[in-house]
């Protein structure tokens, strides 16, 4: 096989490592080169972030940033398979970055152990091409959306609770952003956190893997099938998926519209009446 690719920019060890992925139709050498050149920021090293970061590392995304300020607890391990008991008390961003580097030492994985807030978000996002929302609370979701739109980055969003999950891609090819769909945050008392409602490991496994695939489709330019303007809904208990058509970019959107009024980040915990955390207070 190596001879076949000699004319391209991949070396033999890359051909060996990515061979089964290279030969997949729609990837090829050009797709692999694009993956190696790509920079992806994963916000959250929890249930969604673990499979996202690990599958992107395996696929050879050249630069992966992982933001999380939290530390590993045993109560995370039923769903956060990028960590383990030996990492209890360690920074999640570092623990997951280490797992990614052990899977693939030939790429660059950067842990960011800062809190992701209005003060830090834009600087972090500016260094990457694509942002993946693997966060666990409403305030961070609005922050990630606004920062991604202001920095003009594509946002791959996933969320999960109990037996259910949702996936879509925002701010891609004239598709909507999170605020186009949800201009106003939900009343704080209607938001169920994983700490209250529970969540199952395989649910975040499915949703995180789906998010990783959307990132790969975007980078390899398989744009027709990207979940932009579509929302995928998974009901794990019933064993059903549904993909529904959602609105396109809204001209009146305060952040991605024709005349945006939101031109810098705001105070998201205040806007959402809830903190940057899903912990019970």
């Amino acid at each position: 096989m190596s001879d076949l690719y000699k004319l391209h920019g991949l070396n033999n060890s890359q051909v060996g490592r990515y061979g089964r992925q290279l030969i997949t139709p729609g990837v090829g050498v050009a797709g692999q080169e694009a993956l190696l050149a790509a920079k992806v920021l994963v916000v959250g090293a929890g249930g969604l972030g673990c499979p996202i970061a690990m599958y992107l590392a395996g696929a050879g995304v050249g630069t992966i940033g992982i933001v999380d300020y939290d530390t590993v607890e045993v109560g995370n391990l039923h769903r956060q398979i990028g960590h383990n008991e030996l990492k209890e008390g360690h920074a999640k961003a570092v623990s997951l970055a280490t797992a990614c580097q052990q899977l693939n030492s030939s790429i660059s994985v950067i842990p960011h152990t800062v809190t992701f807030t209005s003060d830090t978000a834009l600087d972090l996002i500016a260094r990457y091409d694509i942002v993946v929302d693997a966060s666990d609370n409403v305030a961070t979701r609005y922050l990630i959306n606004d920062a991604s739109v202001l920095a003009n980055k594509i946002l791959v969003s996933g969320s999960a609770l109990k037996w259910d999950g949702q996936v879509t891609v925002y701010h891609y090819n004239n598709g909507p952003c999170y605020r186009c769909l949800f201009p106003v945050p939900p009343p704080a008392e209607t938001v169920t956190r994983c700490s209250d409602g529970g969540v199952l490991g395989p649910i975040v496994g499915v949703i995180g893997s789906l998010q990783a695939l959307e990132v790969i489709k975007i980078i390899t330019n398989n744009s027709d099938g990207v979940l932009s303007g579509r929302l995928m809904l998974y009901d794990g208990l019933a064993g059903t998926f549904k993909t529904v058509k959602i609105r396109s970019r809204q001209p009146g959107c305060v952040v991605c519209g024709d005349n945006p009024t939101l031109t810098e980040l705001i105070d998201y915990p205040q806007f959402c009446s809830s903190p940057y955390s899903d912990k019970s207070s």
Partner: protein
Amino acid sequence: MIVNIELSGGLEILFSNKKNHQFELSGDSIPLKQLVYWMRDNHVKERPELFVENGTVRPGILVLINDTDWELEGGIDAIIEDGDTVSFISTLHGG
């Protein structure tokens, strides 16, 4: 007329914890706004403000008419006809 209702993302808890409902209503069509009020008044046992707020479905709920975003169908002013399916999906924030 028959209207099929789907609830997900936790909203089913307000509706006897059932995700799928089939409601029989008089007439051939009903404005969505009226259907939402009727559902709140007849089927939400507790805390109706978690479903309706300021005269429309509360923020954080995505409404679909026959699997298409209601925004493409007129929003709260859409007209629901016999056999239509209306889905109310509470957006999830966990991870």
